[in-house]
């Protein structure tokens, strides 16, 4: 694949690793948070941690939309199917996430619920057109990357007067979550020295949206692509900022990220959505102005209003460490349930469900790893 394979070249990775090893200062630690689950996945899949000197460590952040969605919202979605008999359209990532009482969308489907996995909001609209006598709800989740397609769907539904379609909106925002992590102190602090910034969220919001990391929190940030060479190059850029005492926003992923982002997508989001006063994030708790809700002019297509959806307080499996893992305080292997009770086949928490979750990444790529690893070798020679 053009513009993918070039950024996976094993020889260049080995050279970048040598440059990084040359440039790190041995008397300090570099704790770098990759905010996105996509980066966590890449770091494990390509064995990048193993190519780093010992004092360069990746701390996994909360940027996995499935992982931060609180259980109560999945309970809400299951109720829509069971109590209101709607056709629920969802991205596949969500169907196995555990809800209350060991339920999940997949189990609700097995029990006869009409739950359909869609690839795009366009598919959900099509299902609504084809089923004029049924209510069709799109279960919208995701950060800024996934929000514009939902906004388009709402506009199309309004234009077509598609009255049996609505959106259950769970879109969340990246900068408030980043701010939340940086604000913590004492034993709640993730103690991070620098941030690998989101790839595709940034194509929408632009690199300047992160200026506060540098100006308010004196933390350098480099917007990084998802390919292994992007991650390594961005890590090198962070190490150079830290070594020289510079603190700024840099952009490694210039091939798709600009300073200002995608203005057209931003305007569309602005037209359809407004800030939600408060929203619950798994792991990070209740955060003001951290999520979006549908504006009044689109209220007719808002599932929360149409079906009077109420807040359900979530209670997570007690020993699940997801909340602390999402804050960068613990690693999956610190969890008692990891790999015994909790596996991708039988996940107890959301961090094990999504392939971008830290627990799933540790399990899939790290668990059987010996200190200088088979995975990294394979990827290098692949």
């Amino acid at each position, binding site marked *: 694949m053009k513009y993918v394979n070039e950024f996976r070249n094993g020889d260049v990775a080995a050279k970048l690793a040598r440059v990084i090893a*040359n440039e790190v200062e041995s008397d300090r630690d570099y704790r770098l948070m990759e905010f996105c689950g996509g980066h966590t996945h890449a770091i494990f899949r390509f064995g990048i941690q193993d190519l780093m000197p010992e004092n360069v460590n990746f701390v996994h952040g909360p940027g996995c939309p499935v992982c931060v969605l609180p259980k109560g919202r999945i309970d809400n979605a299951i109720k829509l199917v069971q109590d209101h008999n709607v056709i629920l359209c969802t991205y596949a990532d969500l169907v196995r996430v555990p809800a209350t009482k060991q339920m999940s969308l997949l189990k609700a489907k097995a029990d006869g619920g009409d739950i359909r996995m869609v690839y795009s909001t366009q598919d959900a609209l099509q299902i609504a057109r084809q089923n004029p006598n049924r209510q069709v709800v799109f279960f919208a989740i*995701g950060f800024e990357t996934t929000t*514009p397609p939902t906004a388009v769907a709402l506009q199309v539904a309004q234009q077509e007067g598609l009255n049996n379609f609505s959106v259950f909106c769970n879109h969340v925002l990246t900068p408030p979550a980043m701010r939340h992590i940086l604000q913590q102190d004492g034993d709640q602090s993730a103690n991070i020295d620098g941030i690998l910034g989101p790839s595709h969220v940034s194509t929408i919001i632009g690199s300047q949206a992160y200026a506060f990391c540098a100006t308010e929190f004196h933390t350098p940030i480099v917007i990084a692509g998802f390919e292994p060479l*992007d991650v390594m190059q961005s890590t090198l850029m962070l190490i150079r900022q830290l070594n020289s005492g510079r603190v700024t926003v840099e952009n490694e992923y210039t091939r798709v990220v600009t300073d200002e982002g995608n203005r057209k997508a931003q305007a569309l989001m602005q037209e359809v959505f407004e800030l939600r006063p408060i929203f619950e994030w798994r792991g990070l708790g209740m955060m003001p102005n951290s999520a979006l809700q549908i504006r009044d002019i689109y209220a007719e297509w808002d599932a929360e209003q149409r079906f009077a959806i109420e807040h359900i307080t979530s209670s997570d499996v007690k020993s699940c460490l997801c909340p602390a893992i999402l804050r960068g305080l613990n690693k999956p292997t610190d969890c008692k349930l990891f790999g015994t009770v909790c596996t991708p086949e039988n996940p107890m928490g959301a961090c094990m469900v999504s392939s971008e979750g830290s627990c799933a990444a540790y399990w899939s790529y790290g668990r059987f790893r010996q200190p200088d690893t088979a995975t990294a070798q394979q990827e290098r020679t692949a």
Partner: protein
Amino acid sequence: MCLAVPAIVIALNESSEMATVDLSGIQKDVSTVLVDDVNIGDYLLIHVGFALHKLSEKEAISTLALFEELEVMNNQDEQASS
């Protein structure tokens, strides 16, 4: 969830704001409502059936060139230390 891939535009339907893209031999129709000025031969970043951004080939090439330069510096380091 935020994964998106670059794909080349092989056909355009301007009236419906859709494009056909080719992804390693697989063809797909995607919406271009979020991106202005799309042309055949452009690379688009595709996510859940939508083009999110155009890929700048010039920037891609200059990032790759940066890796080449690193290589040179690294070799010089090695020669200097040997």
